[in-house]
């Protein structure tokens, strides 16, 4: 009796906390949306809780500004993020499989090495990276944003844990007896089994790459190759000639809408996926 009542109280309390937290999470998106629908002059008057009717005009300003080619930027970001996600997951799975399924002399050393570099902050090598990219003639190109994602220790670790939990060695033996080549076994048997893990990490890599500012800002020079985060940063830095807060908010909105859409469509996958690698054995 008593415990039932306290249980109810706890339940109400839990709901209240959840609602407050959700409100905090959504509030900022709401403000962003409201501000994107108002003109600079409106914004000057102060905050309003209701949307204005300037969204279309702001969108038009964003689309027509050659100095900040937003839609080109979104395309670049899509290319970079898409390619990164694809090669990152594929090669991480390949590496994980290589270390999981085969026995060779340097196996342990290789594994330890990858675990050790898991913690290396990217900024540490940024300077050398820039010099290297320049010397290789890849400065101001999208390639250096894509290719290095082949080596992603964290994704590898995730894949490895997943393989441990879901790929029985007997399956591989069976494939071998059937005369399947090693590479074919990987592509046709292992990859389908790893689909859930690949999907999850593909989304994470995509999001991470979409939001990456540090490396692209170093490497990209020309307008037509800029990705979304650089454009946002440069827009914020724009001076008095471009002063239009409505446009800035709209640009941020445009930049995060694709990500939110992807997320909402795949949210079940993502939430299920966060837990896949770390938890299972």
């Amino acid at each position, binding site marked *: 009796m008593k415990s039932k009542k306290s249980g109810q109280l706890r339940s109400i309390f839990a709901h209240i906390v959840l609602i407050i937290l959700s409100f905090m999470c959504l509030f900022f998106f709401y403000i962003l949306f409201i501000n994107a629908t108002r003109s600079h002059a409106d914004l000057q008057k102060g905050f309003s809780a209701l949307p204005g009717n300037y969204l279309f005009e702001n969108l038009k300003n964003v689309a027509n500004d050659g*100095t900040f080619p937003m839609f080109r930027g979104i395309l670049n970001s899509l290319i970079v993020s898409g390619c990164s996600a694809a090669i990152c997951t594929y090669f991480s799975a390949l590496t994980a499989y290589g270390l999981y399924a085969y026995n060779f002399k340097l196996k342990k050393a290789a594994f330890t090495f990858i675990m050790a570099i898991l913690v290396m902050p990217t900024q540490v090598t940024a300077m050398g990276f820039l010099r290297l990219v320049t010397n290789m003639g890849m400065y101001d190109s999208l390639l250096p944003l894509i290719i290095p994602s082949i080596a992603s220790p964290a994704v590898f670790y995730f894949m490895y844990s997943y393989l441990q939990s879901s790929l029985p060695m007997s399956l591989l033996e069976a494939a071998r007896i059937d005369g399947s080549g090693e590479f074919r076994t990987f592509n046709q048997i292992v990859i389908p089994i790893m689909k859930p893990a690949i999907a999850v990490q593909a989304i994470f890599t995509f999001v991470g790459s979409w939001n990456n500012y540090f490396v692209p800002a170093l490497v990209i020079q020309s307008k037509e190759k800029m990705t979304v985060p650089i454009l946002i940063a440069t827009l914020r830095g724009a001076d008095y000639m471009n002063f239009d807060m409505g446009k800035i908010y709209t640009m941020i909105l445009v930049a995060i809408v694709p990500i939110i859409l992807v997320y909402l469509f795949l949210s079940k996958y993502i939430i299920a996926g966060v837990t896949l690698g770390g938890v299972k054995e």
Partner: protein
Amino acid sequence: MKKKIVSMLLIVVMAVNTFAGCGKPSSSGAGAASASAEEGKVINIYSWNDEFRERVEAVYPEVKETSSDGTVTTLNDGTEIHWIINPNQDGVYQQKLDEALLKQADAAADEKVDIFLSETDYVNKYTDAEANAAMPLSDLGIDPDKDLGDQYSFTKVTTSDTNGVQRGSTWQCCPGLLVYRRDIAKDVFGTDDPEEVAKKVKDWKTMKATAKELKEKGYFTFSSYADTFRLYGNSIEQSWVSPGETVIKVDQKIMDWVNDSKEWLDAGYLDKNVKGQWNDDWNKAMGSASKVFAFLFPAWGIDFTLKPNWDGGDGVWAVTNPPQEYNWGGSYIHACTGTDNPEHVKDIILSMTANKDNLLKISKEYSDFTNTQSGMQEAAADDKGYASDFLGGQNAFKYFAPVAEKIKIAPLSAYDQGCVELLQNCFSDYFQGKIDFDKAKSNFETAIIERYPDITEIQWPE
């Protein structure tokens, strides 16, 4: 082999141009047309916004059209101007320009920087004789004394290196005024007449008494301490860093600014909520709901900053003389060493900065205070032609012209931008009472050495 011939040709062309330039100054149009055969097809112009492009489109006679996204302008002879725009803030513009300049020697002809722009804060970095990034104008065939004789002389000093060789030119000059709200003036002083208000703000001492008056009625005199910085910073006696030295000498005038700002802020003459410039709070201080009486702005400031941020009707703002003459900003055009289009560059510079008709047109269309003394005197006298609706029919040029003639530009150094920016940032904490005076000083020392590793010492006035 081919490259060698091209570069030989370039040298010859340049030499010829130099001689041609001496004999036959400023023959616009014709020069560009005849030269197009040997010159590169692409003129790369580095800038931080569309200001220069718009002005080129408006007055340069050779312009045929500009692409809809504003990145390429085609000239009548088929040459393309490529606009490479990077924002100023966070030093992005200079960073990108510096990268391009380092690669200038090896770049393909159509990739070379041909023209770049700079601002007063860092013009010195590029006009430095040793760096040799900006070509001496005389090498292009421009005779500064003759061709640019009508320019305000302080703009010529600004663009010259330490040997006095002019390495850039500008279409605008930026004398500043005091821009005030008529409604507030009426409320506090009983009159909004610019002559009367001028008396109230004629020097710093009078200004302070006026500030008190404004305060009693609940108004702020200026929005932020950063607003007044230019007035002090313009009148420093020695440059922040003397040529050839690595010691920063903070001028007494700068410390005056620090002390006065602190006093004014504590007295409530400035709006405590506005911290620095170019932020949202500062913009809002220009709106109708704000209690700020005045801003200190040059012509561009009224047009591009105040106007877009003002949400009321026309005729509320007016200009009058500031407590002290000052100059704020200025965009300088430089021919980049190694350009493959010297004739075009010369033609553009002359047409944009030495042609009085063009400059007056810019003044009319963009309210710029342009760089021709005789032209500006005409504008000052022509109340009808230059009346501004925004200023309630006032002819601002009447006020700008005398200020421009009195401006003495402060000695510049390549370190100015960092010094000005970091000093304002570091002392901002002091003004707000977060840290004491000595801490602000030491913070400035830390920050400046981070920005400029070659600085060895910072000297403060006694």
